[in-house]
């Protein structure tokens, strides 16, 4: 077996380009996924005692509708493979748009499709993380807050939020790393991320060992950075 270090050196610029794209998709994906996840996670428990008191009047049916919409989103995304979601968005969705509207040349950029897919996919899993953490906040703390006469918004912002967030960090770490690795699946819609770059170099020089080892190490470095950032946030938060 021969191992050529020069192969790695030569392919490094292209691989780094791919890694950069992987990183961009991941960061946009998890930022958007957090927004999506917090909304859907709170949506799944809207109007329940986990967020204070049950609402009365018109807010009661509204909260039920919000719960169904959020649950529908989470179950749809969790119940289908991410690769199918990406292909649907990239190939099928434009056809759907063409079929139901007059827009002839509607298409989604591969990179855009990748980012949107990660956002919605991560969002569904993060929603469950948010829901689990919020539900786990001791009910007595909500009662203590309510008994001071604060609003529901203040209760969520200043009591439920900070306590739940601290509990979310370890499972969020999992999800962020999974999302980063999921970007490798966008090879199927032609996004030039790290895995695809590796695949292309490999196809031209057939140096599987050097290329895939380098690719693996690059993923490992990126996931380590993610994990360490979360550890840092966790340590910076007060211990309780």
């Amino acid at each position: 077996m021969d191992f050529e270090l020069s192969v790695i050196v030569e392919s490094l610029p292209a691989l780094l380009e791919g890694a950069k794209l992987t990183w961009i998709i991941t960061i946009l994906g998890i930022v958007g996924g957090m927004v999506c996840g917090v909304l859907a996670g709170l949506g799944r428990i809207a109007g329940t005692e986990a967020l204070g008191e049950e609402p009365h009047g018109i807010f009661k049916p509204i909260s039920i509708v919000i719960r169904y919409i959020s649950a529908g989103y989470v179950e749809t995304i969790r119940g289908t493979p991410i690769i199918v979601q990406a292909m649907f968005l990239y190939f099928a969705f434009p056809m759907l748009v063409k079929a139901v509207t007059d827009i002839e040349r509607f298409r989604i950029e591969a990179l855009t499709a990748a980012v949107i897919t990660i956002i919605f996919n991560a969002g569904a899993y993060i929603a469950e993380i948010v829901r689990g953490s919020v539900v786990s906040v001791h009910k007595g703390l909500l009662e203590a807050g309510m008994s001071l006469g604060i609003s529901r918004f203040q209760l969520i912002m200043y009591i439920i939020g900070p306590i739940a967030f601290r509990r979310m960090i370890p499972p969020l770490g999992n999800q962020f790393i999974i999302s980063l690795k999921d970007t490798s699946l966008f090879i199927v819609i032609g996004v030039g991320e790290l895995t695809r770059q590796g695949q292309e170099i490999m196809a031209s020089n057939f140096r599987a060992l050097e290329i895939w080892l380098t690719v693996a190490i690059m993923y490992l470095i990126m996931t380590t950075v993610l994990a360490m950032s979360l550890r840092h946030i966790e340590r910076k938060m007060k211990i309780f």
Partner: protein
Amino acid sequence: MSNIIELKNVCKSFGNTEVLHNIDLSIQEGEVVVIIGPSGSGKSTLIRCINCLELISSGEVVVNSISIPSEKGKIRQVRLEVGMVFQQFNLFPHLTAVENVAFGPRKARKMNKSKAAEIAKNLLNKVGLAEFENKLPGQLSGGQQQRVAIARALAVNPKVLLFDEPTSALDPEMIGEVLDVMKSIAKDSGMTMVVVTHEMGFAAQVGDRLIFMDDGRIVEEGKPGEVMKNPQSERLKDFLSHVKHH
């Protein structure tokens, strides 16, 4: 003196179980009312109906001239005037002692930060915890936590304080320090207090009225000394004999 709390024909059910049966109770401003009774008798539920942590099934609760359930939209106003101290303290674990106490003034009373901190520090001083202001709840003993919780309830300047078995979760040697704080509030501030407790000594010393509940009803009430000396019902006699033996 006017009635600050009135319960009129209050019933409360959880599912099919009725835990409060037709309760009528009036509490005057400045009165210290102690509620005793066996577990499951509805004492906690009764005081939780006063600040609307439980919504009553029928009847009416009037607190500071606000009637519940007809003025449901004003529940927050009721709570601003009715503080509560819990058996399990329920301090916010992510906030320091002084932040816990300042939280109500800051968020519920919309005070500025320095004013709220000043109020909080004064109150912590009053409950003897000035030097613990920057500790997190997890770093405090049970008795200390409960004293912070009392300061937190006082900080929004309520007219009424509810105590839901405030010493039941404490080690015996810490009960005294919490009761002392409660006694000084009762004596110095003229605060209306409704206290669910098993501490008969506290009831005798600072209670204006003692209420004995059993099975969701008020069975006996009167001056604490008299009620304890001359219990009328068998159930109270039986209850007192059990409490005294421990």
